[in-house]
């Protein structure tokens, strides 16, 4: 996939007003990696994503994405937002939504080309929704909408996919489908995934970025049964206590 890192951050700092969110962050994500981003709420996970996407500009340091400054590379990055809930009365078909991912690829105006529409159908086939292209987006279920947003992100032929908690609010079965789809996409692209799902992190990923207290720490993932209270506190913030059980009822009548 090339020698240029997917993301290279050097001495980056960012503040919202007087609140220092990230401080002196150094980080490299190689192409082909599938990286989970975890950390406590308000710890700076979404801010880190927005900086990588070029939606925010760092106060100090630099961010290079696919060999270029983050803001210039944004068209080459696919993005799936957290809980995107458009106006249900906005008349858009699933195909219309996915085609939005082709904006900015060629002409600045005019209709989408036949090639754009072909790529839209390919993206929908990848996520298993090719037969629903002409249905209203608002009529899709939560899991189908998330898959549609993944299709919108990959239709731009991006090499880097960034997802902000794409499985929040989904049933466990649908969540597994989405995560299996991401593992499939990781065969051809780099993926950065913000998540609270430690089961997925420990089962499927080799690397976790923990964003907390202004810093970003790279951890190799560990097996679920090796998670300790200290490591969970580090990953999730607050005072977290690990409790193990074997899913059998105890004498006290509780699990």
């Amino acid at each position, binding site marked *: 996939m090339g020698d240029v890192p997917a993301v290279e951050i050097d001495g980056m700092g960012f503040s919202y007003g007087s609140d220092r969110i990230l401080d002196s962050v150094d980080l490299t994500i190689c192409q082909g990696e599938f990286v989970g981003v975890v950390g406590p709420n308000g710890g700076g996970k979404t801010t880190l994503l927005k900086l990588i996407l070029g939606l925010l500009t760092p106060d100090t340091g630099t961010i290079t994405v696919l060999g270029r400054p983050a803001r210039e590379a944004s*068209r080459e990055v696919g993005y799936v937002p957290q809980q995107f809930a*458009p106006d249900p009365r906005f*008349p858009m078909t699933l195909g219309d939504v996915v*085609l939005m991912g082709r*904006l*900015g690829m060629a002409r600045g105006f005019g*209709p989408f080309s036949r090639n754009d529409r072909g790529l839209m159908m390919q993206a929908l086939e990848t996520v298993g929704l090719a037969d629903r292209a002409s249905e209203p987006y608002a009529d899709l279920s939560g899991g189908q909408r998330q898959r549609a947003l993944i299709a919108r992100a990959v239709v*731009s032929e991006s090499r880097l996919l960034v997802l902000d908690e794409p499985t929040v609010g989904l049933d466990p079965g649908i969540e597994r489908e989405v995560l299996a789809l991401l593992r499939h996409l990781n065969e051809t692209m780099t993926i950065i995934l913000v998540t609270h799902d430690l089961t997925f992190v420990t089962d499927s990923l080799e690397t976790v970025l923990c964003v907390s207290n202004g810093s970003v720490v790279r951890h190799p993932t560990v097996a679920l049964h090796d998670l300790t209270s200290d490591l969970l506190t580090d990953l999730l913030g607050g005072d977290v206590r690990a409790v193990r059980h074997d899913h059998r009822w105890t004498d006290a009548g509780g699990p």
Partner: protein
Amino acid sequence: MGFLGALMEHGFLQRAVATGLLASVACGVVGSYIVARRITYVAGGIAHCLLAGLGIARYLQVVQGWGWLHPLYGALAVALLTAVVIGWVSLHWTEREDTVISALWAVGMATGVLFIARTPGCSQDLMSYLFGNILMVSPAELWLIALLDLVVISLALVWYNQLTAVCFDPQFARLRGLRVEALYILLLCLTALTVVVLVTAVGLVLVIALLALPAAAAGRLSRSLWQMMLGAAALTALCSVGGIAASYSTDLPSGATTILLAAAGYLAAVAVGYIRDRYARQH
């Protein structure tokens, strides 16, 4: 003589119908954007500010002898200026957006009323500006409306995908490299031009209803934005011509009749949509 017979015979009726049809196309296209984006109140602000442009231009025309300055030119200038100001406030000063729109709304009306009061023999103009008088459209006004219509439709269709993305998901549009702020201002300028076109048909007080009702009715039954635009344009055309016909036959005000027909169309679309949704849930 029936309406169709009169239409063949009278030039003023032909101009009225032509104005109604031209206004319908711009109204369907731009009305769909502003209903989908939920910014009809912005269109209301721009429409009411127009009275300042109409009043000032009429004053300069009558009192200062600037014969070339048609009131619609003044309306056009003020509408575009208001659109840019409201757009800038929406993008950079969101916590005061409603206050600024309300202030512009009232200040525009007040300025227009003052200039009209200082213009001899213009009290009749005030009523036609407020409620429209499509039967009085002159050939020169019809050409200006046709030109504005062409500009609105061309720009709206050329940037259809971009404007749709900005209305549906501005953050994603920005990530795709679109100039979201510039496109939003473009949308408001198209709204301003459409409002100028519609003022002659229904007057500035009723403009919001004609922009919103047909588009909302069509949106209830559409799967995509372009379907909504086609439906809204067709319904607006039906209501405009129906309003003119009713006005000719019964001597009722055409603008008010057009709006009531649009309201009836909206209620019918809501009822059809409700029945369709219920049927879909049961099967």
